[in-house]
């Protein structure tokens, strides 16, 4: 019987390793999921690039701008332009206007995505106010820039060539929530899916 006992213990050990590995996988899924969204543009996650490519197409696409604030965020936040028409491949600068309506200094970060979700891989940001935290003094109003371009490939992909308008959406969240034990995140990250519904 002793050999059965040893065999049983060994098998139980091996199975415990499987359990531990699956718990590890669950936690590993958090960074992997973010990475997956950023690499594939999944769920309308725009790409982040250093510069636009060389090819500029003569074709044009409409980009619409949308702005939301979380209910805990005492800012007024609006796009400076409702929409613009851009040439594919050409870097463009757009502005969002934010104003702190409260009587205290407030820091916030914006999460963002584009709709329809499927255009995520073709919408690239070169620079954006959403890459860092923004701080506004009471009553301060600023124009915040975002530099982006739309990849000309969008019209060759059969999945996306029916798209004629892209909506770029931001939701501003307050960085330090009232309860001070919550740690503020320093870098804004792309949000997926329903996040902007909360705004």
């Amino acid at each position, binding site marked *: 019987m002793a050999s*059965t006992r040893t*065999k*049983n213990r060994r*098998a*139980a050990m091996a*199975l*415990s390793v*499987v*359990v*531990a590995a*699956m*718990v590890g*996988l*669950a*936690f590993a*899924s*958090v960074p992997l*999921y*973010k990475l997956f969204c950023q690499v594939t543009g*999944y*769920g*309308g996650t725009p790409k982040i690039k250093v510069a636009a490519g060389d090819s500029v197409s003569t074709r044009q696409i409409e980009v619409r701008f949308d702005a939301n604030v*979380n209910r*805990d965020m005492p800012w007024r936040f609006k796009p400076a332009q409702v929409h613009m028409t851009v040439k594919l491949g050409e870097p463009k600068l757009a502005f969002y206007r934010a104003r702190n309506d409260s009587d205290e200094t407030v820091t916030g*970060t914006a*999460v963002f995505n584009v709709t329809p*979700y*499927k255009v995520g891989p073709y919408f690239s940001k070169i620079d954006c106010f959403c890459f860092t935290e923004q701080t506004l003094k009471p009553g301060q109003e600023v124009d915040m820039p975002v530099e982006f371009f739309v990849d000309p490939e969008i019209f060759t992909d059969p*999945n996306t060539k029916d798209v004629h308008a892209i909506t770029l959406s931001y*939701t501003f*969240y*307050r960085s330090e*929530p009232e309860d001070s*034990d*919550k*740690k*503020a*995140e320093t*870098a*804004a*990250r792309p*949000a*997926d*899916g*329903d*996040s902007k519904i*909360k705004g």
Partner: protein
Amino acid sequence: MAHAEAHHDDHHHPGFFTRWFCSTNHKDIGTLYLWVSMFAAIVGGLMSWYIRAELAEPGLQFISNDAEGKQFYNVLVTGHGFIMVFFVVMPAMIGGFGNWFVPLMIGAPDMAFPRMNNISFWLLVAGFLLLLTAAFIDGGPGTGWTVYPPLSSIDFHPGRAVDFGILSLHVAGASSILGAINFIVTIFNMRAPGMTIHRMPLFVWAILVTAFLLLLALPVLAGGLTMLLTDRNFGTAFFNPAEGGDPVLWQHLFWFFGHPEVYIIIIPAFGIISQIVSTFSKKPVFGYLGMAYAMAAIGVVGFVVWAHHMYTIGFNVDTRAYFTAATMVIAVPTGVKIFSWLATMWGGSIKFEVPMMYALAFIFLFVVGGVTGVTLANASADLVFHDTYYVVAHFHYVMGLAAILAMFAGWYYWIGKMSGRRYPEGLARIQFWFFVIGVNVLFFPQHFSGLAGMPRRIPDYPDAYAPYNYISSVGALITAIGTLLFFVVIWRTYASKETVEANQWGEGATTLEWHVASPAPWHTHEELPDMTGKAPAE
């Protein structure tokens, strides 16, 4: 096995406390699991009858028309789901019948780790108590069994109720993982000589596949729940978009566990039904290997279809196409099982004993639920059906009722072996008809109210849905009578003087549990049976 019987009266007269609280005997632990399951079924059942009473007519009759009343309704829905999944079906199928009959069927004297078996059981009890505690503090958890953030976040459930619910699932999950390890080791290492993997009865195959699903799925739930717990209490932001998290990640983690979970519930039922159909057709199961590997295939494919629960979050067309197709693939191995059961019966000498009647009712209900499942697998259709009563009807048929009917089937099939008594035949048949008619009257109309757009988890509805809901509630009443009758059957069985012989069902019952006395003695298979060269036990 006269000598085995002589044995059990020789030694072993543990006192009540030692026998039931410190038990390491697979049969006693199995019995404990079955009783806990029955008790939890009363609690979960009362919740569902309260829901049906509220939904019998439009307007609010039983809950108060304020935030507390509606939260109470949400807590009922949540509690019903949790209890039925984690504390009724899983304990009865895996802990109860699994513990009782896996060692008996493979010719092992007990489980591989008898003391771990005891820990599994008591962790389950602790989990159940934590869940009941959750229901009574801070308004209770009103999150639904899916516990989606942001509803389950600290902003919308500020009390301790959701934390208790999370801990309950952690503890119940640990119980199931330990149980799963125990079953896998037992089945791999403790089989009698000659009982090869391909000679194991299909119920043992079912428990083996289920144990692997538990082993792979539950740790993912545990991981997700831990993230939710730290999000709620320790300032992390896994699911909070304000700080860079994403609530959709929870849905992925939950359903990566949740979809295999529905197979964890139904695969043991497949095993029970295979034993019963074979026994009462007096034929070996048609396509034994196909049946075994169909269960394995369902288990494997079950891990790659989870996103069909979340079509509405905005997947792109390709993703929807994949999950639709992958989901429909599951209809192939399940079809293999259905047709093999039919082929087993074909040309068989069928006896309509109560377990067989329940097995046939199981097949009928499972097919109805399977058909609506194929409908719901279509992403484009599901966008419309999502969160309607059509979905409620689907999953109650395919996993709720099918599992409960298989549990009844197993109870009637094995109670002679477990208690040594015969169940009251006439009363059992009446109980069968009340229950089976009741659940169909209850859930069939919900297909129609669902197609008409009635949303789930809402305590009130427009008058247009009133007739369907009234019929549903009448069905719930009939089901309640059937449930009550079952407890009368239990009482009459244990009070009965009529004993049963070792092989109650005659020549159709070929598996090893029918070779030991009834009731099964304290110790069985102390001398390992030699199965060398024998036909597959099914």
